[in-house]
């Protein structure tokens, strides 16, 4: 079981991710945008952060950049949930400090496989 933070402004996406991970036995927190995710991250020691790229208030890429400045989040896996059309976004996310990405659309099995990949 891992502590995971799911960040997406879309309630359906976030809900699907959280539901799938909780069913797999993880402890999942949710945040609606990058800013709220940062606040949540400061309060909890997450083992993994999954974040959408396009969000209001603070987007996923800025969030990763901010998160990597926190000593507690150096080395913590952060995955970007991105759409295929934005290959440049993957690289932008990587440059900001993301560990990797999961391309939308993904189904619950793909999500679990990827999470397993980073959590070992």
């Amino acid at each position, binding site marked *: 079981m891992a502590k995971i933070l799911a960040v997406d*402004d*879309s*309630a*359906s*996406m976030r*809900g*699907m991710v959280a*539901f*799938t991970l909780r*069913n797999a036995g993880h402890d999942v927190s949710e945040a609606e945008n990058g800013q709220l995710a940062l606040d949540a991250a400061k309060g909890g020691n997450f083992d993994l952060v999954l974040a959408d790229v*396009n*969000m*209001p208030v603070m987007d996923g890429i800025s969030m990763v950049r901010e998160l*990597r400045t926190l000593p507690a989040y*150096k*080395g*913590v*896996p*952060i995955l970007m949930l991105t*759409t295929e*059309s934005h290959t440049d976004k993957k*690289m932008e996310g*990587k440059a900001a*400090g*993301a*560990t*990797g*990405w999961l391309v*939308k*659309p*993904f*189904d*619950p099995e793909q999500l679990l496989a990827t999470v397993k*990949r*980073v959590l*070992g």
Partner: protein
Amino acid sequence: MSKAGLAQFQQVFIEESLEGLDTMESSLLALDQGGDGELVHTIFRAAHSIKGGAATFGFPEMSSFTHEAESLLDEVRSGKRAIDAAIIELLLRTVDCLRGMFARAQAGEALNDAVAEGLRSELAAAMGRGVPVAAVQARRDADQADAWTIHFRPHASMLAGGNEPLRLIRELVGLGKLQVTPLFDRLPAFGVLEPSECHLGWSIELTGPVKRADISGVFDWVEDECDLSIEAKHVVAEVAATPAPAAAPVADAGAARAQREASAESSSVRVSIDKIDGLINLVGELVITQSMLDTFREGDLDAARLAVLEQGLAQLARHTRELQESVMGIRMLPIASVFNRFPRMVRDISQKLGKQVKLELIGESTELDKTVLEKIGDPMVHLVRNAIDHGLETPDKRRAAGKGDTGTLTLHASHRGGNVVVEVSDDGAGLNRDAIVAKAIQRGIISSGEGMSDEAVAELIFQPGFSTAAVTTDLSGRGVGMDVVRRNVSDLGGTVTIRSTQGKGSVFTITLPLTLAIIDGLTAAVGEERYIVPLISIVESVQLKTDAVRSVAGGGELFRFRGEYLPVIRLHEAFACDHAVHAIDEGLMVVVEGDGSRVGLFVDGLIGQQQAVVKSLEANYRRVQGVSGATILADGSVALIVDIAGLVRMQGRRKAA
């Protein structure tokens, strides 16, 4: 994940996407009015979310369609393309098309239609290219070998990015037999070793029939964070094409459909946390009151304790009332969701008719019951169409009448008493008395307009089959008239009235109950029965002398009320009650209004005003004419709620028979 699990989020996705489309539409309209660039980002985000979600939740056609719009928006967002009226228009139509797709998705129908296909081409053309014929198939890295040599040397910073070399090597284990040799050559002296950095490298021999793509897939996140070489030892000439995956099982398609239908029907309400917290708070107080009252189970009731008991009961009453209000509040939503569709509609219609219209929305935060809200849209659409089509004049005519070129259409919502009042007003030409009278005579509704008050003439437009437009336009002339508007509103327990001044404009006033679940009513006694008369339809109650009511030929009765003769409906006759008062001077005449006409309801007497929780008679028994539902009185007996409009119709039929 279970099907029910996914379906649950599919429904959330549809709801949030419809909200997203509303946001796109209002932002596009604001952009049309010269709004700022931040709007483009908002629109882009909404489109992007719909695209991503549609693919995830099983609507690939919608996803690829939205992708076109998103690409166009991306060009605008990044400054590659200037936004103009044509693009806004195109995107507005895209929003409409997507709404249609969502409606079809909920009905379980095919998503694509000719409109969507046409728009796809238009969107592509707007970006100066043709429609992508098919998604470019990803180049298959079919390179396969029996043994590989992988040279993997992470950059020092790799660990900070959350990627762990050990994990990557473990992933390779799944592919075949591994032989891993660590490379220590770059390991610094212990004194200067930085433990958060990566200094090792590995040389890996992988044996087994593995594709290159599978190996590079393991390293795809770290390509830019390491030196990597993947070399085949023995290349296999050709790879047999992998068989196409078997068609997805369709066995439980029926179950899926049932699921979909169920979710389409059980619509949900979004409730703010504040409302829920308030509710929890109240329940907490109720529990405290209950435990306080519980102490009265034991011991004698002396005067001092009686005072405390009374206080407790008063508290219980207060909390119950507050709880009721809060629970009702959960179903209450701001009327903004209905108002918001009008800016677009008014823009489209006024452009079509060559009129200049300014729309003013007032009281958008006024809340009313979700059910009422859902059903008030259509009547309002009709009133707004009418106002632009028939009420407001063209700029020339307005100038001739000494008014400004631009007409004003106002939608105003407010709470008044226990009701919500929605006014649709315009500063147009107002009702044309002569035209209405002429039309009504032509239609055989009246024989002459002489002596009719302006009010009575205005009422004529609510008569079935009435239309004053010389040419039936495609806007208002859709086969529904004001009679339908009035019937729809009266089905919601509300009323529509009109106030018009020739040359100055008209005001349509819709009065609606706050909720359909509870009505304010007067309890009337008829024999041993009790009936609830909805307060909203009561005009006045009067005690009459026996000779004030006159019988007319055909068996009806009439009485004079404020210069008007009103028909009498004796409730004991309508519902065949025994032991009721028959003499006019011993009972009470309640003047009520329903379906646009006033009648006198003759009852034994009125007992008092109360709030009645409406129970459906249809669901528990069957539909009964003249009755809209039932409620349970304080003594546990059942009282029927009188449907005034239904009674009036019943009376009309009986007279005609």
